[in-house]
């Protein structure tokens, strides 16, 4: 994208090149080559390649070869561990159990309201909706449901492995 695009000047003033490459690369929804990430991060291509290489070494990104072109994408394990760390830093074991119950209750509410077992089943039902507005509403709920189920999986992981994950954490001040 052109560097004159709205907000890019302020972005460059307020952040380092590494920050911008990191923020673009960790938010990617598909593997992308260095020139694309460089353009989106408003940095030179060589700068992007250097920072992307460091992020691969730090296990923040994965690099794959696509017919001679290196593609970069977020390492899903790093993303998951970052969320786990945040949950463990802000919740006790009991609070995680409460959070799990809240997430399960929300999912059960959607299951009952839409008579669907999963977000995918709810999306299927959007095909039978009578108006575009209803279709949009169903797809929006399915998106929220899928995201909630993803979060529930990480919360369950945090609870199941709480003792292991917190054994090396420093005590709270």
């Amino acid at each position: 994208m052109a560097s004159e695009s709205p907000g890019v000047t302020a972005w460059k003033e307020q952040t380092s090149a590494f920050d911008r490459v990191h923020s673009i690369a960790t938010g990617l929804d598909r593997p992308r080559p260095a020139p694309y990430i460089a353009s989106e991060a408003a940095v030179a291509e060589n700068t992007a390649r250097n920072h992307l290489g460091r992020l691969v070494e730090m296990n923040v990104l994965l690099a794959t070869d696509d017919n001679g072109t290196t593609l970069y994408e977020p390492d899903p394990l790093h993303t998951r561990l970052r969320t786990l760390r945040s949950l463990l830093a802000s919740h006790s074991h009991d609070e995680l159990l409460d959070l799990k119950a809240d997430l399960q209750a929300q999912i059960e509410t959607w299951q009952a309201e839409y008579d669907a077992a999963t977000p995918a089943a709810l999306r299927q039902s959007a095909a039978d909706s009578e108006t575009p507005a209803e279709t949009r509403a169903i797809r929006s709920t399915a998106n929220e449901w899928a995201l909630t189920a993803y979060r529930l999986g990480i919360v369950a992981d945090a609870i199941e492995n709480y003792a292991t994950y917190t054994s090396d954490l420093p005590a709270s001040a």
Partner: protein
Amino acid sequence: MAGDEYDPAAASHRALQAIETALSRHPSVVATERFPEAVSTQIVARLDVDAFTAASGDPTLTVRWFAGETQAAEPTVSFHYSDRATDFGWHYEPNPHVDGRGHFQRADESADGYAYQPYSFASLEPARVVWEVCSQLAAELE
């Protein structure tokens, strides 16, 4: 990711993380929090009222971002500003009001809710959109 099936929920989660980080680095953002508290599918950024000339009390920017249902599909996005006097936002989602997904909408009683106009995002990478929207926000609140 590599070799794995595309998971739109995981992609949405990553986008929200990138947005939260970008918001936390923007000088006009005071704090961010997830909303609703448990499911955390949205981000609410509390904004510095003094950073915008025309902002009223309690300005916030509420962000929703759902990655496409398939890797080839486009995301559903909204960055919506509100304060005690008004609300408006930049959205990228199917809608019956303008051609295409990108639009700007502003609360307008005479238009029976909102008035809409097309808007073309310069980028659809989450962190870039944060800085683009905050730039447009400053222009709207001059």
